C-alpha cells in the first residue's frame, strides 16, 4: 500500500468547470456538497483506504526567523495568495491508478445546480519506508 495526499487548492490550479463560488449556491447545494465529502470519507474507511481528512481555515500568517534573540518576522494574512490550500485527504491505496481514480471521484463533488464542480485536486505520493532487503 502507498499513501497519497489529495490536495485541494482554492486558487493556483486552472479554474474548474462548474466555477460558481460556494456562497452563491443554494443552502441545499452546500449541504449536498458537504454530505458528498462525508460519504466519500466513510466509504473509504469501509474499503480500508482512509487515513485522514482536514479542512483549513483560509487565514494564515507567514513567519520567518529573523536572527538570534529576535522575535520572528511575521507577514500577512494577504488579501490574495497565489495558491491557497483549502484542505486535504490522505488515502492509503494499493496502486497509483487507484489514487487517481479516487481523486477523480472526489473532484466530482456536487456544486451549483447539483452538478459536479470538476475541481482540480493535486495527487502527491508520500515517501514510503526503506525496505529491509536491499540487495
Amino acid at each position, binding site marked *: 500500500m502507498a499513501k497519497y495526499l489529495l490536495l485541494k487548492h482554492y486558487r493556483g490550479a486552472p479554474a474548474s468547470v462548474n466555477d460558481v463560488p460556494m456562497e452563491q449556491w443554494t443552502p441545499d447545494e452546500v449541504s449536498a456538497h458537504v454530505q458528498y465529502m462525508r460519504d466519500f470519507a466513510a466509504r473509504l474507511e469501509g474499503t*480500508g483506504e482512509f487515513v485522514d481528512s482536514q479542512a483549513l481555515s483560509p487565514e494564515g500568517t507567514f513567519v520567518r526567523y529573523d536572527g538570534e534573540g529576535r522575535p520572528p518576522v511575521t507577514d500577512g494574512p494577504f488579501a490574495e495568495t497565489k495558491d491557497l490550500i483549502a484542505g486535504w485527504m490522505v488515502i492509503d491505496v494499493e496502486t497509483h491508478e487507484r489514487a487517481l481514480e479516487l481523486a477523480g471521484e472526489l473532484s466530482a463533488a456536487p456544486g451549483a445546480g447539483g452538478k459536479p464542480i470538476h475541481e482540480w485536486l493535486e495527487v502527491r505520493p508520500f515517501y514510503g519506508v526503506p525496505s529491509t532487503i536491499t540487495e
Partner: protein
Amino acid sequence: MDEALLRALTPTVIGILVRRGADFAAAEDAVQDALVEAVRVWPDDPPRDPKAWLVTVAWRKFLDAARSDTSRQHREVRVDDEPVPGPSVAVDDTLQLYFLCAHPSLTPASAVALTLRAVGGLTTKQIAQAYLVPEATMAQRISRAKRTVSGVRFNQPGDVATVLRVLYLVFNEGYSGDVDLAGEAIRLTRQLAAKTNHEEVAGLLALMLLHHARRPARTRPDGRLVPLAEQDRSLWNTRLIAEGVDVLQAALTRDRLGEFQAQAAIAALHADARTAEETDWVQIVEWYDELVRLTDSPVARLNRAVAVGEADGPRAGLAALAGLDPALPRHTAVAAYLHERDGDPVTAARLYAEAARSAPNLPERDHLTRQAARLNAQLRS
C-alpha cells in the same frame, strides 16, 4: 504479561473454535476480543493455564456474538463458565490459517493484515499503528479480507508460495512504528518452517535472519542509512548469521533451488566477508545469474549489474545496466554509483541528484542527496 505467549497461542485457539463449529470469521473475531481482554486482565490476574483461559473466553465471546445475532433478549451470559478442554487436533490448524490468510483472492495489503491478526495474534490497533493508518480503517480492511475468504473451506490445502510472499512483505517493510514487524515476520516464518518441510520456507527464513543480523549496522542513531560497504561489521549479529547459514545450507542440500534460497545465498556471501573488500563478488554474480534465471525479475538484473561492477569493474557494470529499463526504481542511483567508480564524478553527481528526486523514501533521498553534495564539493575544490 507474556505477550509472546498470547500471540503464539492465537492460531491454535482460532483452530479450536473452528473445530467446535464456529466459522472462521466469527472465530477470528471472538479470539481477537479475547486477546484484547487478555491484554487488559492478565497483568493483574495471570491465568494458570493461558490457553484454556483464551479458549474459554473466546468461546464465550463467540456465543455472545452468536446469541446477540439471533436474539437481543438472550444477551445475558454466565461469566463463570468452567474452561472447556479443547479437542485434540489432528490436522495442523495453524498451517491452514497461513493458507487462508494468504489466499490468492486477497490483495497483498489485506493478506498482510489478516495474517498479522489471525496467525500473528496482533491486535487491530497494533497493526494500524505499524502501517500508520487509523484503527477504524485497519478494522475495515481486515473485515473485508475475512468476507473475501468466507467461502474458502478451512481444510483446503494452499500454495506455500503465496504465504511466503506475504511474509516477505511483512519483513521487507518491517522497520516502522512501535511493532517490530521484521521480528514478527521472522517468528511467523520460523513457525511455518517448523510445520512444513519446504526448502523455500527455509530459504526465506535464512534470508530474513541474514538481513536481520545487519539491522544494528544499517542505520545510525539519527536514522541515516549506512550502505553495506560502509557498515561496521562488528555490529552484525553473528548468532543470527550462523543460524541463517545453517538453515540455508540444509535447504540447499535438497537441490531444489528457488528464489529465496538464491537471495539468501547472496546475503550469506556478504555476511561471510569480514570486510567489504573481502566480498566474493564473482560468486555473488553467479547467484544473481541463478536468481535472474529463476525469476526473470528486472530488480534482480539491476542488482546483478551492481555485482558485475564489483566483480569485473565499473565498465562491465555499466554494460550490464545498459540493457535495462531506466524507469526501474533505483536504476539512476546504480548508474550514479558505477559512473563514480568509473572515474566520472561529474556524471555521477548529476545522476545522484536525479536519483534523489525520485527516491522512494526519505532516508534514501537524504543519502543520495549527500552523495551528490559530496561529489559537488570535491569538484569545486
